């Protein structure tokens, strides 16, 4: 698991939770037909936590949420191809 950015870990509990809330709201709108690779990740708790971490890392780098979700979905799909 990649370490979380220091800038996130130094946030207050309220700020961390606010960011989690924003991520959860974005993930709630995902369906099996929109971003199917991310949707699959959400079905397992450890994968779900890892996905949330990846989104935090991306957001802290300044990426916009929707672009980030598309990028992560594509990366998971490519990883899947290599595994096959």
């Amino acid at each position, binding site marked *: 698991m990649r*370490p*979380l950015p*220091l800038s996130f*870990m*130094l946030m207050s*509990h*309220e700020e*961390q*939770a*606010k960011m*989690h*809330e924003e991520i*959860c709201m974005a*993930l*709630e709108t995902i369906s099996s037909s929109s971003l199917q690779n991310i949707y699959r990740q*959400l*079905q*397992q*708790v*450890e994968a*779900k*936590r890892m996905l*949330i971490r990846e989104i935090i890392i991306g957001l802290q780098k300044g990426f916009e949420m929707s672009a980030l979700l598309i990028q992560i979905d594509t990366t998971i799909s490519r990883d899947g191809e290599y595994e096959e």
Partner: protein
Amino acid sequence: MPTREQLNDSIEAFILNKPNDYVYTNSDLNFLRKYDKCEDAGLNEKVVFDKVWSLASKMKEADEAENAFYGNVLVTHGGGGKAITSAPEGISFHVMNTNYFCHEITKALTSGRQSNNFMRYDFGTLAEYFYLGNTDGLPSYDLVISHPPAKCPHAELDHDSLLASEARKNARVYYAVRSFAFVEPQGSLLVIVPREVALKTHEDITDLLFHVEGATFDFDVPSAAGDDFILKYTRL
């Protein structure tokens, strides 16, 4: 003589400025022990955690004879690592923390155990497992130790509206109930709470736990005299 605040600030500066590969000396570790902003700072290690480990060792007859504990343990609020520094040998730990400095202090004070035991230092909260309504594949442990705060904004994001609403009222009850989901059959959950709220918290926990888990648990009733500060729930 530095004030408490100055001491905490200088410990935080030390943690932020140390190189990644820094090896702590004994005097560094003594310095880190003085940090008092972690959840367990007010707990007397000898009184509280000796009692925790004494209760834990009674779970299995063989362990009680050896005054030991062999198994996997989840610590939901790692604080400054007192639950681990006082623990007997033989335990694999998963420690969660949402405060960076406490997370680093716990690692510094307890990573020596890694030579013999598995240690997972997890920056995050147990509430994350209950975001978005899916809990398939929850890990399970022989023992879960929780020292929850009364308020926690992460807990309020639980997908279950009843649990989220309970978290807004009293995060201690929330964490006790959610922590129990990680307890294996015959395993136990130990919740450390302030003495003055122990009985009321226990009543609220048992009500909500029964609602969520059904009749799958046994518990020790805290004394009405208000002496108890550790609540124990065992999965049947």
